[in-house]
């Protein structure tokens, strides 16, 4: 294990930000920390990095305790903090060169790494720009470049894609996968479900400082009761429709979404749509639209917490 966290509890005064939290990160995987705002993702990372003191628990990085003066361990880590963090009066190139230079002594190698990082986040056009001349999204890309240029073994990325446009985001995500493929282990926090699902080998879902579930995206989705969701819009009102739908086999529950629009959730995914359509034609029920979905991570979160992750 690259990272092992056991029973971590961190309080800010009376506020419990992280509550008896466990985490294992294996070598070469992208681990996603998924949770809503304020769930404690950043706090977990800062505690692992020994920026923050904590009340109880045990943290091991590379199998050892990461004390503030363990420069040898820190040299193997790269961090992209959630907030922008670079020198305001140094150019894009100088910033990346500086951060890379904290880890890489050799000049030629450093130049190569810095160029690599610049390609990586696609800011080649802006090498000579000062940060204040960059747009918000470009600043975030610079922020990423500063944390990964030295090609660390272990990388923490704290919501690196906020404010980055869709195209660049895809590019960035692919490159993060690329980093993993070159042997880095990555801890990635986000509250974007799609991102977590697309990118992460394993996901830990956090809420209110606790880890409420973990596994691959598929494992998580299979772990919950809902297996399939069907949404139907009818052409008119039918009598006691909700009860009739509820009585069907496999149906977990029925939610009225709109005037004539219903969401039906099934316990098994066993040709539910076909059975449903058969039932409609038998009963002479006409519909305007019908579609089915497999459960998402949002459903996982909803089932575990009773809250929507997506607003």
């Amino acid at each position: 294990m690259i990272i092992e966290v056991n029973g971590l509890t961190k309080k800010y005064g009376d506020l419990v930000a992280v509550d008896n939290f466990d985490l294992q990160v294996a070598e070469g995987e992208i681990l996603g920390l998924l949770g809503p705002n304020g769930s404690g993702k950043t706090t977990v990372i800062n505690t692992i990095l020994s920026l923050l003191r904590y009340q109880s628990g045990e943290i091991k990085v590379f199998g050892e305790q990461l004390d503030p003066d363990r420069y040898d361990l820190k040299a193997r880590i790269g961090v992209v903090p959630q907030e922008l963090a670079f020198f305001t009066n140094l150019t894009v190139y100088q910033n990346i060169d500086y951060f890379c230079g904290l880890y890489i002594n050799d000049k030629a190698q450093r130049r190569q790494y810095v160029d690599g990082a610049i390609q990586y986040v696609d800011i080649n056009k802006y090498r000579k720009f000062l940060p204040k001349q960059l747009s918000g999204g470009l600043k975030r890309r610079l922020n990423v470049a500063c944390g990964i240029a030295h090609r660390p073994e272990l990388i923490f990325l704290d919501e690196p894609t906020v404010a980055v446009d869709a195209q660049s985001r895809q590019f960035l995500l692919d490159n993060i996968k690329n980093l993993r493929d070159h042997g880095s282990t990555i801890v990635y926090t986000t509250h974007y479900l799609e991102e977590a699902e697309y990118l992460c080998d394993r996901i830990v879902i956090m809420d209110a400082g606790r880890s409420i579930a973990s596994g691959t995206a598929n494992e998580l989705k299979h772990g919950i009761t809902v297996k399939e969701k069907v949404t139907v819009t009818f052409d008119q009102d039918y009598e006691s429709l909700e009860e009739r739908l509820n009585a069907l086999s496999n149906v977990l529950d029925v939610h009225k979404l709109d005037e004539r629009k219903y969401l039906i959730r099934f316990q098994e995914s066993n040709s539910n749509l076909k059975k449903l359509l058969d039932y409609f034609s038998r009963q002479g029920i006409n519909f305007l639209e019908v579609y089915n979905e497999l459960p998402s991570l949002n459903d996982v979160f909803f089932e575990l917490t009773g809250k929507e992750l997506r607003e």
Partner: protein
Amino acid sequence: MKNLGLNIKYMFLETVRDKGAIFWLLAFPILLSTFFFLAFQKLDAPELTTIKVAADPNNPYYQILETIEVLDLEQMDEDTARAELDEENLTAYIKADGSLLIKKSGAQVSIVKGIMDQIIQMQKMQLPPERYDFTAVYTKDEAVNLSAMQYFMYTLIGMISIYSYFTAVTSFSTYQANISTLGARLSVSPLSKGTVVLTSAIVSLIFCFLSNIIALLHIQLVLGVELVNNLAPTILILFVASLFGVAFGAIISTSNKLQMDGKIGLGTTVTLTLSFFTGMMNPQVKHFIEDKLPLLAKFNPVAIVNDALVSVNVLADTAGIYLPLVRLVALSLLLFLISMIWIGRRSYDSI
């Protein structure tokens, strides 16, 4: 101490491109010294020439008083004299009984009173006049030419060098996780404490020293106050003063978990206090400290700088400055050492 060069290069660039900071670095000493110049221009009172006194011509002392050089004696009756005294055209009126009429006390009144005392006292001695040897002058004078302006300017330079802690606080605080996200980021890098302290110290020292030199040049060349008679030791003093300013900034930055505003407030207050102890607002305070708290006086950097500048440039005493300067360097190194122990590289309850 890996990559010290790289750190210094980029820290220097980061500082030198901060236009606001650079502006204040230059403007601060120039503005303050100009204000001081304006305030102390007339503080060097004119030399004592004569003292205006008056007496009635029938006054029995009139003839003796007329012979005394320092007095400028006028004939006047008491009523006129009262009016003149009130207008402060007159220092004292001597009445027929030898008593003095004055408006307010002061050195000049004391001199007149001393003269009148002497006349009365000679009567009391009951010796014949020929026993007095009025030709003998027992005192041998040496007047030193010192101006209050110079004195305050030397203090000001001491103060400005401490004020250069601004630059150092900013620089040292860059590396602290609780001050900025940049600080947090640097704290998780393998940047060693030694590199951090050396980088900040060297870069700040360059700017602080520059600021001091500018202050000196401005006072000497633009304001025209003669400060430097012995350049080499003066430069040495300024360098040591800047070194201390930087060390002071380092300790202000690292000794507490305050935010930037708190650190700056703390630094300003300490600087004000040290300047105050050096007699900036009231010279008596300096002597009070020297007498009652000699250790504080010995290690008060503003006082050390002031004294050293006076020694070298006014008293032509270069040998005497080295011990205090060594003390100041030692104090600076101690502060750097403590900063190094305290700086960053620690965990916080909250960042």
